[in-house]
């Protein structure tokens, strides 16, 4: 069957958009990449996170907040449809502070973010050490922990189950998924787009490019110039432990199965997903400073993934001016923004255009000539 719309990219971003389009009664075909591709969706840490995000871009703060407001309903719907438990918990989240200086810096950073938006009351609080100890009765904190910031709207979910559930839900709404479907070329033909794959050609009147780091080469062919770079993040995971950490923290969370995820590093080695001993040592040191008892625990795995980074770190959402019907959606917070992608963004794409409040996310913001 001829699809109404083809989504290129079967990661968390593309799958959420495709699922949302299928719910809008679009005939959707989702093209997933190859096993050898860089798959950020399979390396994700699993936070559904608001605190600390959006400095310098109020619209991103609003977007994140809106997506998190949709997350519970989104979870309930997709779990009912697929019977896949996303393990979503939204009981708030922590960012640990080390030293008095670290505590004051965190307060200062969150206050700046708060003032940027000028809303009524903050939805976060600074917890001193004793308040933090009451919140985490099973954790013996390291001596240098002075407290934490607590974000009321933060939470976490299982990112691999989310991806599986999005694919499953898309199929249940009549969509199609093609795996190992690498798009080599896009040719605009009249008002349609012809996608050239290895040994196959697909045609649709509309396309969404959500192919992560593979997107710039495709987007260029439909008049969309999107600057992207890979940023490597490495994560450690421990053996399963009895539940001791009731809330996720930035860089430290205990999953429903009991493993502890420790993350994440940031560096720029290019298209390289190898893991390094340096990263494992650095993450371990940082973690033991917060929870010393974790030094006795066994690590079972370390992995690396590549974040999809724009020059300012914020998402790109745009429709091509030269080739209407071609959209691009790129971000590195595919889990937090999944509800927004499935509900709001997919609805706008189905209706034919992005709303005015998404205009700050157009890549034209990078075209401003730099001052000498």
């Amino acid at each position, binding site marked *: 069957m001829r699809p109404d719309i083809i989504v290129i990219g079967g990661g968390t971003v593309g799958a959420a958009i495709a699922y949302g389009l299928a719910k809008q009664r679009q005939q959707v075909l989702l093209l997933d990449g190859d096993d050898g591709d860089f798959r950020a969706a399979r390396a994700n840490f699993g936070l559904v996170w608001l605190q600390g995000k959006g400095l310098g871009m109020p619209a991103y703060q609003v977007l994140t907040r809106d997506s998190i407001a949709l997350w519970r309903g989104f979870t309930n719907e997709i779990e009912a449809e697929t019977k896949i438990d996303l393990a979503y918990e939204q009981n708030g989240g922590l960012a640990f502070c080390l030293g008095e200086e670290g505590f004051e810096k965190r307060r200062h950073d969150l206050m700046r973010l708060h003032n940027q938006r000028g809303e009524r009351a903050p939805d976060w609080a600074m917890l001193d050490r004793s308040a933090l100890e009451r919140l985490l009765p*099973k*954790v*013996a904190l390291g001596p240098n922990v002075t407290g934490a910031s607590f974000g009321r709207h933060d939470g976490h979910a299982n990112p691999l189950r989310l991806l599986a559930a999005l694919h499953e839900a898309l199929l249940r709404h009549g969509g199609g998924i093609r795996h190992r479907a690498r798009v080599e070329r896009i040719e605009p033909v009249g008002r349609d787009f012809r996608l050239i794959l290895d040994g196959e050609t697909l045609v649709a009147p509309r396309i969404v490019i959500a192919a992560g780091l593979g997107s710039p080469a495709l987007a260029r062919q439909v008049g969309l110039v999107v600057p992207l770079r890979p940023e490597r993040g490495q994560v450690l995971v421990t*053996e*399963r*432990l*009895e539940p*001791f950490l009731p809330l996720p923290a930035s860089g430290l969370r205990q999953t429903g*199965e*009991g493993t502890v995820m420790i993350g994440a590093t940031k560096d720029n080695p290019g298209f390289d997903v190898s893991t390094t001993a340096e990263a494992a040592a650095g993450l371990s040191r940082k973690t033991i400073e917060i*929870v010393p*008892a*974790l030094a*006795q*625990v*066994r690590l079972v795995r370390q992995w690396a993934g590549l974040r999809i980074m724009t020059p300012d770190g914020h998402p790109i959402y745009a429709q091509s001016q030269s080739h209407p019907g071609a959209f691009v959606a790129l971000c590195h917070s595919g889990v937090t923004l999944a509800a927004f992608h499935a509900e709001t963004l997919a609805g706008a794409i189905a209706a034919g255009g992005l709303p005015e409040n998404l205009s700050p996310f157009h890549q034209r913001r990078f075209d401003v000539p730099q001052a000498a």
Partner: protein
Amino acid sequence: MFRKLHDPGAQTVTIFIDGRPVPAELGESVAAVLLRQPEAWCRTTPISESPRAPYCMMGVCFECLVEVDGLASVQGCLTPVRNGMRVARQQGPRSLSA
């Protein structure tokens, strides 16, 4: 379930499984000794709590996790016995304080 084909003779050492003395032979693994016990299981899983016994015997499957001399989640198949070693069957997930 299993028995040794030969008598280890002078190579015999004693290890303790859940406090009970058990003969073992120098050079064999903790998992091999466990498989000779009337109860061959060595741990229960953190999620389903079902009992598990050593399986692959080559360090891959992680079914043979036991506590050895107070250190939890040790792979029994990769750990040679020592005289006086204290082995404990591991029940469910480790506790962080243990």
